[in-house]
């Protein structure tokens, strides 16, 4: 494999192996290279989140000096619209980062002289796992239902606009999450032996869960903006249930043990 790997990459790979039940195992260069790619993407995600935060804060500060207004029937809608813009930018960032990571790993794959794959089909539900599917169903189907409810039954214009944003934004994010998860399920295997394939399976599952459920922070912000106390309660309940499910998914992923075949080094 002709990919430069530094000590930091090897250290990250060692930590990853310990976390997944293979302590003492010396990581191979492939895993170290993949950990380096992931670390780079994590830095980019933080950078994007910071840029988005600065953009929102900058816009809010600018509004103190220059008066922007988007009002319908005398109701100011700049806040909800700003939220919708941030929502879309976050969606674009998530998709772009996932795409870049796959491209970087494809370049690593091209350097492997030996490639290994499963000889039988793995079903998407085997890759994604039940906790993730439950979290996705509650987050996206629940978010759309709640947003539609606010849109249809909201007594105040602000509630209806918030409902529209929650419905549309959650739909967009639901499609995006499905796209990212689907691309991860379908992406080519990146392995040069049994152990590397077991690692690849685990990374595939983790990567397919990487779509951040942005509709939850948005719903949380909306719970403070909505006029109706009923919607406040429903939004908070929705966030709490979905957070529990996502927490379970991430905790399971974080400590999921590698299958026994991966307990031995490939090289």
């Amino acid at each position, binding site marked *: 494999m002709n990919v430069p790997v530094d000590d930091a990459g090897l250290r990250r790979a060692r930590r990853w192996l310990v976390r997944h039940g293979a302590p003492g195992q010396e990581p191979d260069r492939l895993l170290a290279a993949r950990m380096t790619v992931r670390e780079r993407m994590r830095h980019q995600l933080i950078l994007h989140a910071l840029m988005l935060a600065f953009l929102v804060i900058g816009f809010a500060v600018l509004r103190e000096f220059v008066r922007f207004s988007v009002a319908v029937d005398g109701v100011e809608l700049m806040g909800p619209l700003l939220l919708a813009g941030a929502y879309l930018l976050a969606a674009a960032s998530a998709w772009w980062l996932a795409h870049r990571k796959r491209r970087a790993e494809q370049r690593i794959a091209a350097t492997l002289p030996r*490639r290994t794959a*499963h000889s039988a089909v793995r079903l998407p539900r085997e890759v994604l796992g039940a906790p993730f599917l439950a979290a996705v169903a509650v987050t996206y189907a629940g978010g759309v239902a709640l947003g539609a409810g606010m849109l249809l039954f909201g007594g105040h214009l602000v509630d209806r606009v918030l409902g529209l944003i929650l419905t549309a934004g959650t739909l967009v994010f639901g499609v995006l999450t499905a796209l990212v998860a689907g691309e991860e399920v379908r992406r080519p295997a990146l392995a040069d032996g049994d152990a590397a394939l077991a690692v690849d399976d685990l990374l595939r599952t983790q990567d397919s869960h990487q779509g951040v459920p942005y509709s939850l922070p948005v719903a949380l912000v909306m719970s403070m903006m909505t006029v109706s106390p009923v919607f406040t309660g429903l939004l908070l309940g929705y966030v709490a249930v979905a957070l529990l499910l996502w927490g379970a998914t991430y905790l399971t992923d974080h400590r999921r043990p590698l299958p026994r075949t991966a307990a031995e080094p490939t090289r």
Partner: protein
Amino acid sequence: MIISVDADSKVPPYEQVRSELARQINDGTLAVGTKLPTVRRLAADLGIAPNTIARAYRELEEAGLIETRGRAGSFVGSSGDTSRQRVREAAAEYAAVAHRMGIGPDEALAIVTAALRS
């Protein structure tokens, strides 16, 4: 249930794929009815051309080890065990013919080896 292709091997990639799948089907690692990856998927996984996988699948299908069910994909065929049984029967018949012709076991084996390699 894994399959590997070594780009540095002297064995052609299609033969590496064909022989490994045939071995897994014959020893029962891949059970009857197991769905195989699509040609494109396996080609992408192994970093080789789809035509290479298509050739391996075609030969496995001709040997009766797998069957293609239209758009549903390729599956391990139920005739896998039958194929081995047929080969065993043919070997027994060959052994009987060699015995009748007065050909010794070593020479008979050499003839089979040459035939397998040709």
